[in-house]
């Protein structure tokens, strides 16, 4: 591709990203106009400007930044603690039949269980502290990662395995230079799903078993009927999701440069 062609492609990409903002902004304007026109009870459905005002107040009081830090810490710690063994075990399942025979039925039985249904059990085991929230997020993140990693590693194009064997790859080289990299695109697909699930489970766990965090902010505001503060929590989670997902795509681009665009 020529340099000018590349520049043009980049400009198109920037344009497209700006256009992405169009529909959310239009939605917010419609919402504001509807509330101002008297459609809906402002106590239950606040206008975007009400939410923005409360957002600002919660920011300067330090409440929202602190809740954000707490929630992010729980979600990211749980995500990593769940994802790393998920990758390792998924690769092991693809490499060794024995591991797959042991692990496969456990996945089939445990994956469909709603992880929040385990929350009472986890509270019994780990108490009411930070650990219990991190554990439930980790369990939720683990399953999509292990399933995708295994699928990626088990379905590597046979020719790469043939080449590696023909060119004298040891099991270690086969594992670290062929199977792992071959599975990497699907590992990342799994990580992305796991990140979204971590947000869902992390927030929901804070509804029922926390005294801090965005989930707690949403739930306690609801109990006090502070609907605008509740919306602040919901919007914050949405924003955090967008930011982490954007960062994630950048990381993926760096780690998998060979993936055709």
């Amino acid at each position: 591709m020529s340099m000018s062609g590349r520049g043009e492609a980049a400009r198109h990409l920037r344009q497209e990203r700006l256009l992405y903002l169009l529909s959310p902004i239009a939605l917010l304007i419609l919402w504001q106009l509807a509330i101002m026109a008297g459609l809906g009870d402002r106590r239950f459905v606040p206008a975007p400007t009400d939410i923005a005002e409360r957002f600002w107040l919660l920011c300067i009081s330090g409440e929202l930044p602190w809740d954000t830090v707490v929630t992010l810490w729980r979600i990211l710690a749980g995500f990593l603690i769940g994802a790393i063994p998920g990758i390792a075990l998924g690769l092991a399942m693809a490499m060794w039949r024995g591991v797959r025979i042991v692990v496969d039925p456990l996945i089939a039985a445990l994956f469909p269980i709603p992880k929040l249904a385990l929350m009472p059990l986890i509270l019994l085991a780990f108490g009411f502290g930070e650990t219990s929230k991190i554990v439930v997020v980790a369990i939720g993140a683990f399953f999509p990662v292990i399933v995708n990693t295994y699928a990626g590693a088990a379905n590597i194009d046979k020719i790469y395995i043939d080449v590696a064997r023909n060119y004298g790859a040891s099991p270690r080289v086969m594992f670290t230079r062929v199977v792992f990299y071959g599975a990497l695109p699907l590992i990342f697909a799994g990580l992305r799903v796991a990140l979204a699930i971590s947000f869902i489970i992390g927030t929901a766990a804070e509804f029922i078993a926390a005294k801090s965090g965005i989930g707690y902010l949403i739930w306690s505001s609801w109990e006090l009927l502070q609907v605008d503060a509740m919306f602040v929590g919901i919007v914050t989670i949405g924003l955090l999701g967008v930011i982490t997902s954007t960062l994630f795509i950048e990381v993926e681009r760096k780690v998998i440069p060979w993936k055709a665009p």
Partner: protein
Amino acid sequence: MTTEPARKGAKIEIAGLRKIFETPRGTVEAIADIDLHIAAGEFFCIVGPSGCGKSTLLRILAGLERQSAGTIAVDSAGWAVENAMVFQDSGLFPWMSVEENVGFGLMTRGVPAAERAVRVEAAMRLVGLTQFRRHFPHQLSGGMRQRGAIARAFVTDPAVLYMDEPFAALDAQNRTILQEELVRLWETTGKTVVYITHSIDEALFLGDRTAVMTAHPGRIKEIIDVPFPHPRNLMELSVTPVFGELKLKIWRVLEDEVNRARASEDGA
């Protein structure tokens, strides 16, 4: 003006080779009773109808599959590596740069990094890929990728090169250029080459001898000498009367087998 290479590749002796596959619908005999003697440094081509087991034969020779019966003796004394295979689809790892791909067979065998770099550089120069060392395979054309696969094979200094229709997916011009390059590499390195193709032209351009295989199960039906001297000019060769006669001769041997293969496919 042929420069005789300093050493010759491995001699290959194949005796009573059979391969039987177990399938849900019963056993299938892929190749049966193959006896072959391939001389040291020979360029040996195999043609046959599709599905005749020629790829299976090559995979067994390359150690990617085990024969059901029979023996293979490869005398590769004096060579670093017994064999290296070049596949139809280049099989370059998409996650490695061209450089890393070419050096793969050296890395697996623990060749020190400094020596590896020198040998990889030389191999890439041989196939004209030095400017593309940091490219990923998806950034290269099909012909470039196949050059990379050939460099990856030659760099390990194998006694035998197994090639499974390596140029079948290329366009005609690229194919001719790569055939010329391959012949030149073979003439200077003296390796034994076992080359599978479905193109009679290609077998005549490249080979010292051409074996025609039968369909279901694969046997060696006939071996035809290709008497053209080296170095060969492929385009000039293709307009000589001897070339035409040999092509027809091989086609006559092959024709029955192609028809037989098609008939059994229709019946299945």
